[in-house]
């Protein structure tokens, strides 16, 4: 798992991951890129991350992938990421395509629901919490 300040250099990251696994004999490599869309007058999105829990979440996914003979990868931005650039990339390597296709789906969806990352719209230089697009994590409301 990698955290980068600002926009991700997607080509560098995907190229490096591909090089790392060049001789691993995986038959499938499925990358996913999340790009910031220009909408609602935003200049950028901005992200806060709580790394200790994100690392644990990712390590659990790495274990799930390992059981299937696969590897999951991810990189995310911290701080401001301008529109039309990327804040999130992930990928799955696996011996066969079916495992990789299913795993990238589950991995990205669980990422959206349970990775401890908070998103803000940046408008006129101001950071506004994207509350309406955010999802309570599993177990939310315990202390209510």
């Amino acid at each position, binding site marked *: 798992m990698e955290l980068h300040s600002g926009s991700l250099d997607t080509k560098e990251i995907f190229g490096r991951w591909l090089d790392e696994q060049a001789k691993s004999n995986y038959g499938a490599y499925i990358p996913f890129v999340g790009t910031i869309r220009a909408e609602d007058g935003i200049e950028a999105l901005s992200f806060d991350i709580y790394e200790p*829990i994100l690392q644990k979440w990712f390590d659990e996914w790495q274990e799930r992938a390992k059981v299937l003979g696969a590897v999951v990868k991810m990189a995310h931005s911290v701080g401001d990421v301008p529109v039309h650039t990327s804040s999130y990339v992930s990928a799955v390597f696996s011996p066969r395509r079916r495992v990789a296709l299913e795993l990238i789906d589950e991995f990205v969806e669980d990422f959206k629901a349970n990775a401890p990352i*908070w998103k803000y719209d940046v408008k006129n230089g101001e950071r506004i919490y994207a509350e309406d697009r*955010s999802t309570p994590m599993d*177990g*939310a409301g315990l*202390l209510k």
Partner: protein
Amino acid sequence: MIKVEFLGPIGKTPMEIEATTLADVAVKLKEEQELGAWLDKCAVALNDTMVNDLTTVLKDGDKISILPPVCGG
């Protein structure tokens, strides 16, 4: 003492409280007016592990994290 930290957009200064279970933490946090809009949608971690049981026993020096709704990507 138990340290309670508030992550992401909550923007509240960390607190130190006396508590022996998570249920005690709930009672203390409900007294904080500025948390009124947050508690029903926040998840909880104890020493960086997610927890889901109010009877969880706490010990001196434990760290509780309050995690508001997330949106990565």
